[in-house]
């Protein structure tokens, strides 16, 4: 007789691991089953080329909830964030805009383009601070159902109301943010192209929207509200790559007694009389558990593992309608030397600071809003962008352990790469996509092609095949208003429960959504424990 668990968690992405850790901490016997040979899901480090370690998918941390870091004591298990200082936005004419960690220095850089922008920047930061403060409590709470009159639910609604009340002055701005395009939102504040470009770019990451599409402004906030050490909008590089984040959560989970099995793909969830009873692995092995938790995206969970036959039609069609279009790809490079962007030629002479200091943050290829919108237009008609938006980091500058001495790795997040191509398949187009990325970037970094030792190109199709992200959507479903908060993933099922008894969801397809945040995993565990699992 095989062991029977209190809970089995499907998928060892960071959310599945967080959920398992909290359940185990509460004394439950927990088994996590992961399809791949390693834990982490979209939060992994892999040695793709000998000696070079890539954060293959996600690459920077900010959204990870401080509560989780402290409650699970993640630093004890290897969680360490290294600073990412600033954002360099090269412009096509060989100039650049640098936004540093330090406000005064940023102001000076911005003033080269516009004094008005330089001064408005701090005020904009203040507005975003307040908006982030407004949504912050919601990142740690299960969304209340506005249609339910249950007392606990009313209390939760009241607490949302209280947060809004405390931030009443900013409700107009919040309404704007929720409905506007990121371009319109930032154009209310600024005038210089490189600033508008790089700010509005954070509104398109992971979404199938352009900077001029309504709704993209909220995505900006999603990328702004992360916090490190009490500071909003701070992003960090995990030492050892993103995999170290997942490993640390796995370490915490194991310390509480959770078991984690890799190379254990689930084929289906066992359902008897509308109740989840366990899972069946590929190959037929059955694992029985009192509670089944899925960290996969809603489509994969319900249409794949559960099966429409166990669900009512209305729910099934809601899940089918759930938007999960992929829009992003990734190119990871092993480099023989440090890239030398044109805009940093002679920089040490001009400013007194070595070029390297400008590369310790993110590099954003987003020269202006039209550039981004054109990139989107390509994708709308089924092509990858001819001139894509790119968000780049060089983790080796902070963490030399990622490559042999003197060598570097470069992580290039690329948009747009639509899942559905108008012509050909992604397998046929993969290298052409990689070439486009490198060609575009080489315009800004002339020595790039000479220093590439290896390149890994990841398309939305690869994200789906290899990482199990349906349609390659990085957030397990778009962060659009109609599928956020009490609507994520679908109305009526935002509290981590599912139509099946004894079955829950805990992945990025649930509130508060995608990103390396851990909040869905933690909130799901709380719900499961509260329901007396």
């Amino acid at each position: 007789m095989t062991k029977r668990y209190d809970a089995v968690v499907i998928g060892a992405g960071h959310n599945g691991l967080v959920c398992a850790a909290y359940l185990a901490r509460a004394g439950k016997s927990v088994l996590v089953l992961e399809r791949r040979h390693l834990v982490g899901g979209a939060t992994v480090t892999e040695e793709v080329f000998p000696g070079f370690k890539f954060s293959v998918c996600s690459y920077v941390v900010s959204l990870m909830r401080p509560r989780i870091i402290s409650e699970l004591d993640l630093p004890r298990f290897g969680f360490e964030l290294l600073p990412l200082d600033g954002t360099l936005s090269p412009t096509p004419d060989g100039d650049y805009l640098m936004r540093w960690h330090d406000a005064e220095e940023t102001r000076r850089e911005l003033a080269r383009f516009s004094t008005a922008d330089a001064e408005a920047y701090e005020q904009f930061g203040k507005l975003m601070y307040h908006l982030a403060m407004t949504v912050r409590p919601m990142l740690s709470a299960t969304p209340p159902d506005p249609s339910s009159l249950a007392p606990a639910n009313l209390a939760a609604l009241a607490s949302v109301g209280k947060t809004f009340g405390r931030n009443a002055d900013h409700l107009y701005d919040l309404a704007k943010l929720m409905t506007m395009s990121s371009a319109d939102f930032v154009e209310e504040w600024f005038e210089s192209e490189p600033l508008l470009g790089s700010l509005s770019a954070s509104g398109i990451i992971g979404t199938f929207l352009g900077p001029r599409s309504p709704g993209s402004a909220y995505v900006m906030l999603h990328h702004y509200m992360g916090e490190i050490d009490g500071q909003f909008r701070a992003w960090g590089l995990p030492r050892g790559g993103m995999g170290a984040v997942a490993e640390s959560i796995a370490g915490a989970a194991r310390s509480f007694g959770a078991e984690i099995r890799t190379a254990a793909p689930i084929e289906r969830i066992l359902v008897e009389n509308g109740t989840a009873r366990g899972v069946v692995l590929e190959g037929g092995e059955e694992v029985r558990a009192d509670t089944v938790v899925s960290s996969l995206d809603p489509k994969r969970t319900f249409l794949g593992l559960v099966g429409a036959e166990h669900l009512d039609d209305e729910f099934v069609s809601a899940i089918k309608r759930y938007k999960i279009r992929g829009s992003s790809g990734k190119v990871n490079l092993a480099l023989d030397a440090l890239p030398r962007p044109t805009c940093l030629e002679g920089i040490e002479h001009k400013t007194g600071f070595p070029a390297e200091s400008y590369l310790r943050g993110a590099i954003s290829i987003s020269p202006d809003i039209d550039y981004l919108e054109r990139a989107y237009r390509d994708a709308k008609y089924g092509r990858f962008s001819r001139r894509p938006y790119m968000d780049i980091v060089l983790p080796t500058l902070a963490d030399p352990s990622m490559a042999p001495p003197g060598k570097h790795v470069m992580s290039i997040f690329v948009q747009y790469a639509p899942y559905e191509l108008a012509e050909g398949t992604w397998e046929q187009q993969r290298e052409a996509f990689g070439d486009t990325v490198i060609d575009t970037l080489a315009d800004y970094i002339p020595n790039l092609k000479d220093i590439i030792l290896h390149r890994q190109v990841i398309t939305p199709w690869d994200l789906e095949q290899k990482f199990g992200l349906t349609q390659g959507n990085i957030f397990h479903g778009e962060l659009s208003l109609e599928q956020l908060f009490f609507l994520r993933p679908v109305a009526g099922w935002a509290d981590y429960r599912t139509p099946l008894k004894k079955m829950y969801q805990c992945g990025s397809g649930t509130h508060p959504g995608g990103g390396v945040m851990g909040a869905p995993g933690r909130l799901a565990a709380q719900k499961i424990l509260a329901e007396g699992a």
Partner: protein
Amino acid sequence: MAVGTPFHPRTSALNKSLNWRHWSGYFTAGCYHDFIQPEYAAIRNKAALIDVSPLYKYSVEGPGATALMQRVFTRDVSKCSPMQAIYTPWCDSGGQVMQEGTVFRLDDDSYQVNAAEPTMRWLRLNSAGLDLTIADRSAAVAALALQGPTSRRILNACFDGDVDGLRFFHLVAGTIGSVPVTVSRTGYTGDLGYEVWIPADRAIAVWDALLDVGQPHGITPCGILAMDVARVEAGFILIDVDYISAERALIPEHTSSPYELGLGWAVKLDKGNFVGRDALVAESARGAGRRVVGICIDWEPLEEIHAADNLMPDLPQLACREPVPVYAAEGQVGRVTTRCWSTLLKKYIGIATVEACYASPGTAVEMELTVNFRRRRVPAAVVQLPHFRPPRMRE
């Protein structure tokens, strides 16, 4: 990264202590010596030469310039003659102070606004419909404060403008060497002193000339830490230390009106409309709820508390900017925002914000102080600001 001011080649050669502070994104010398006393003493006894280039400077010119000044500032700029300066706060529409600074009237339609924080945006926002141009001159204009009793003699020895005839808060143009400069009789030390406004590309020549002729008069390059002590003695508030700019404040409780800052004298409600006037009319009728005041910690109890632990009183030689609570019998009634030991007055003094009913001079309060790692309360008195103001400042 922070950068040097136009004087950096000189200040960096002198700053052997490597004590640098960041000021508006510039490196400024905190203290050239190992300790601030020689520099502080220069402010009060000789002449201190202080690089204040990081100040923000804007020129406002054109037929609409005076109207903008009247719209933005709480003081009546029409009362300010050409080549005169005024000190004034400016407020947001809720009457909460955004900044305070000096405004130079250079001519009927020409002004220079000097501010601690950027203010271009605010000037522009308020200049709708006015015929004027605003230029950010912050980087183009270098500035030196020459402060102390011998400063007049030094300027007389190298500057061709009329220094002896230059009254407090007035300006005069002229040259030092061949460099055209403007000299204002202003400063942040509460002493006799001047500020010299210099084209940035000629800055070094003026520094050299001043140090050269200043030698016999004891001219001493001085860092901003000594100036910080001098300004506490002089009772000058500092933005983001003694109050928070309404622009930066995150919650309403963090903002302050001019009345609360003790700047009610600089609010001219009858001069016509200006930004924040409605709110200030209401507040002047109601009275400010709290007040910036001077505070002076009683010596004897301070000494006794320390002596009980076999310690000498621990006196802050640098201005300490960590706010500490002020208590009365009812509980906390305010905070001390800056405090220091005045070597001149031999008093432990500070600048505090207290509820209005505790603001009258002589009110006995207590200040929190950590002595021997234990939180204690030391008796203190509310006092009138300034703590120190020599007649030579204005004479």
